């Protein structure tokens, strides 16, 4: 019998182990009246240190509140948010990114003018278009702390060697084609063709002057202007032959890699990579320009991340105050001076350029300022990520001449317009 007892004890021990492993601490919502929890992604110790600096600012401004921050890596953050949302455990203040928002609007409180006032924020303090970053179907679900848009990066050495004109602020699609053609020489290509959603759509959107999603969030991939501009983009590979066809559908960063390995003279990528391209490994002289202008001028998408308020937050006023601190002048100045990203608050933006190498500072500043003049918040449909997943492998067929852009866009529209 004693032995049997040992057996049962073993079972009990294992069971309790399993149970304790499952029962992690879960504190969301905010239990007491003046406690506010912030959830945010963090990829490294640097990220966490920067977040803690912002947390310290919020604590200093609101000593009466008990503010805590929880972090998770980018990939896990959104999985965690899904489960937190499902179990009603979302943190009162949660980080959100413009590209992810459409899947999580259900968990966030739409912010009103009055909410911003409670937070001590004024829409006029933010850069034009910035408050559209975390908007979905006309509702604002968060306030951004940084903003980014797409630019054309170029290899100045390669353009010079080919005698091609250098892209500059105010250039047009004719200029773009000329430069791309002139730079396609001696085994080098004019452009690294894009595979990622933002990277391939930036030029067609700017050329057509429309987004492939309407204002109310309806998928509009078959908009004639957008189709025409997208066909033009595909033709850069198959007809104009100024870009190399993509080698495999698994090369998600094809165009950018072609550019940074000095195989292509230009590529479209986000402002977030500006510093990376300026300090590229092969050591070529890199430059940047806003997207070229089409008949209706130039149109770029403004992207970015920010903080929002959870729908089921119990102490909203306290949370809004924290939100105000996280996006206030002090916190935004900190983001800018640390050079981590381009802040959304107008008065903090100039500080960002001071972190850039003096050699490039003026170019980066003027390009950023020009690029952010012609931006619109990115509109996404409900299943926008599915659209991207479907289109990407099909782009390979388009670039290799086995399929047409119009057919691929039409097929995506048929499948995902529901």
């Amino acid at each position: 019998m004693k032995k049997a007892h040992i057996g049962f004890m073993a079972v009990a021990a294992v069971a309790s182990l399993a149970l304790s492993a499952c029962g992690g601490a879960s504190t969301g919502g905010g239990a007491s009246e003046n406690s506010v929890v912030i959830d945010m992604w963090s990829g490294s110790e640097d990220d966490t240190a920067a977040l803690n600096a912002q947390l310290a600012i919020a604590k200093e401004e609101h000593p009466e509140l008990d503010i805590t921050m929880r972090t998770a890596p980018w990939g896990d953050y959104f999985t965690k948010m899904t489960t937190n949302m499902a179990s009603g455990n979302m943190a009162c203040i949660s980080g959100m990114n413009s590209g992810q928002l459409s899947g999580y609007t259900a968990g966030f409180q739409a912010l009103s003018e009055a909410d911003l006032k409670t937070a001590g924020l004024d829409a006029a303090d933010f850069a034009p278009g910035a408050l559209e970053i975390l908007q979905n179907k006309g509702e604002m679900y968060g306030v951004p702390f940084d903003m980014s848009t797409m630019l054309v990066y170029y290899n100045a050495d390669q353009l010079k060697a080919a005698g091609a004109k250098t892209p500059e602020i105010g250039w047009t699609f004719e200029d773009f084609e000329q430069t791309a053609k002139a730079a396609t020489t001696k085994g080098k290509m004019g452009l690294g063709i894009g595979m990622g959603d933002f990277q391939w759509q930036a030029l067609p959107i700017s050329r057509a002057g429309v987004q492939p999603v309407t204002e109310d969030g309806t998928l509009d991939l078959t908009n004639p202007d957008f189709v025409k501009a997208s066909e033009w983009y595909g033709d850069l590979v198959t007809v104009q032959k100024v870009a190399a066809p993509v080698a495999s559908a698994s090369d998600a960063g094809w165009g950018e890699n072609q550019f940074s390995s000095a195989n292509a003279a230009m590529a479209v990528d986000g402002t977030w990579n500006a510093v990376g391209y300026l300090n590229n490994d092969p050591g070529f002289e890199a430059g940047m320009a806003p997207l070229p202008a089409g008949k209706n001028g130039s149109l770029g998408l403004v992207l970015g991340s920010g903080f929002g308020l959870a729908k089921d937050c119990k102490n909203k006023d306290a949370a809004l105050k924290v939100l105000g601190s996280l996006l206030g002048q002090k916190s935004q100045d900190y983001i800018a001076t640390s050079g981590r990203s381009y802040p959304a608050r107008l008065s903090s933006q100039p500080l960002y350029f001071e972190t850039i190498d003096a050699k490039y500072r003026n170019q980066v500043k003027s390009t950023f300022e020009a690029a952010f003049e012609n931006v619109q918040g990115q509109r996404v449909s409900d299943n926008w990520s599915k659209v991207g997943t479907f289109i990407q492998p099909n782009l390979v067929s388009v670039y290799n001449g086995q399929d047409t852009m119009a057919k691929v866009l039409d097929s995506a529209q048929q499948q995902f317009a529901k």
Partner: protein
Amino acid sequence: MTTTVNDRGRNTMAKAESRQALGFVSPALIGLALFTVLPVALSIVMGFYDWPTYGEKKFVGFDNYAKLFTSSPDFWPALRNTAVFTILYVPVSVILSLTLALSLHERIRGRAALRILFFIPVVTPMVANVLVWKMILQPQGMLNGLSMEWFGFQLPNFLADPQWAMVMVVIMSVWQGLGYNMLIFSAALEQLPDSVMEAAKLDGASGLTLLWKVKVPLISPSIFFASVMTLISSLQVFVQPQLLTGGGPGNATQPLVQFIYNQGFKFQDLGLAAAAGWILFAIIIVLTAAQFVAQKKWVHYEH
């Protein structure tokens, strides 16, 4: 009387012992229930639900299965791709690795080194393998570079052409998996009974006759094992197309498992993914059972 007392004693002993046994196996049982039985049962249930990763779950009966076969644009192509891959991969892999094992079985110099060489791709991480193959196959890569330099001939864009992409996925997979089957065959060949071989030789068997009539039947259990495992792994192929071709161009190299992955984790439709998973399971069971039936005709076991 004594016997009944003994019996009773034995009974209580047996009961106590079985309780103890239960205690000792329970960690394994709990693990099995938690990580195998529960997910399997859950996936059966999921297959009958419209089950998004977040939001309302709705019972839909056989709708997911009907949707797969009638309206999903990628399901039939995925089935076709898996079939094409399996039909090309299994015979080529088994025959090539058997040939290799046979040729390395002869007493040639450096055969141990050669075996290690052929086994290296099996133990190298697939990501590294794929990276090397991409560098060889892409238009700016080695193959096209050599072809242009020597013959001035532009090779196709292998990984972006629907037919070539599948061929390349198969070739890369064969190269990668060759060493594993070769090792199985080599081990079997090393254990060929000397007495039988000697008898065969005394009877005048040599060359192809010896190979075909004696060696191959003797190692047929290993060939059977290798072909069953290779068939299953090829029906479950995922990493090679995912990394080498991304399932593209279009859906030309997207196998069933990648389809399941995309439905579940990119399109957040777990119900559809679970249904497709059970279809794959059914295919594997049927084909494996068929192999077990067929083996009675060609596999020889020594009794």
